[in-house]
């Protein structure tokens, strides 16, 4: 069976980097965008956190349930994500609980040997459920890079941007 040790360690580091970034953002920066139709910082954060529940809903539905409010429905008539209307500075819980649900899903499927559901026949993590964790980390990194660009373009000084680079040290521990 896949040894998850390094991937779980990786996901924990990723969570710390997300926490670092959430803590570094100034309230006025949530609305930054490129002014050309791109997502705002708040929208990117919501998209990152929502990635977990969005995929779990399709590949391992029961593991998505802790992230959902069954008393409310979204536009598709599915249970509403618990953070769908939360302010961007309230998304820490969405990341933390989303990560926990993702780990639970991967561990359950690795233990049972049952692959994730693949509703669109696109091979969703069929080689190993563990790849869902790597995908989550890479997806977050991709969008953190975009947030950093928006912060720089939004007026952060070079010194402030250098300070944000401190999060890379978490990956080098």
């Amino acid at each position, binding site marked *: 069976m896949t040894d998850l040790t390094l991937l779980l360690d990786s996901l924990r580091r*990723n969570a710390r980097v997300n926490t670092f970034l959430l803590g570094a953002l100034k309230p006025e920066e949530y609305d930054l965008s490129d002014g050309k139709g791109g997502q705002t910082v708040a929208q990117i954060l919501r998209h990152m956190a929502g990635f977990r529940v969005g995929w779990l809903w399709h590949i391992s539905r029961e593991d998505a349930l802790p992230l959902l409010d069954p008393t409310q429905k979204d536009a598709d008539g599915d249970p509403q994500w618990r953070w769908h209307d939360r302010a961007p500075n309230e998304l820490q819980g969405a990341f933390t609980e989303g990560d926990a649900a993702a780990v639970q899903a991967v561990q359950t499927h690795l233990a049972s040997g049952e692959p994730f559901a693949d509703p669109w026949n696109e091979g969703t993590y069929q080689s190993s459920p563990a*790849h869902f964790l790597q995908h989550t*980390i890479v997806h977050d990194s991709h969008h953190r890079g975009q947030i950093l660009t928006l912060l720089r373009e939004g007026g952060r000084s070079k010194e402030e941007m250098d300070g944000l680079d401190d999060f890379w040290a978490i990956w*080098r521990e």
Partner: protein
Amino acid sequence: MTDPAPLLEGFRRNARLNSFFLDELTDVDLALSDGQGGMTVAQMLSHMGASRGGWLAEMSPEFVASTVAITGDTPLWQWHTTDRAAIRAMLDAGDEAAVQAVQAHLDSGEPFADPRGVGTFPSNPALFLLYMIVHDANHRGQIVALLRQTGATPERLDRLEEQWDLWRT
């Protein structure tokens, strides 16, 4: 010892994505920047490639020769080019050197050197591969954002979105 296999597989996927980006980006794309002091696309890709050798030069210098052969007299961290073939060669050489260095240090049990005391993966040398994966993803995200800001068509952006398919296999 923990099994580095999942990270090695992730690193191979990351290499395929970098290659996919180099295939997709035109010379015009490579020259794009935000005009506000940010790196051009070519500079970001060069920086991604050179970062392997840049770290190996401190951590495990015996594995740096193949990347220094490309940069010549230019310090690794300052190296950049608009030559797509050179960027590709740097990424390929850096990837191979990174895997060899990680494998050698895992085999010997010797941690990477840390001459500046900045942290060089003391908990497990294999995490250098993760570092390159997340570092590349960070900059690919910025490249996609730059393309969108500068007017890339929805079709082109959709095509770049296909990168995510690889992580779901």
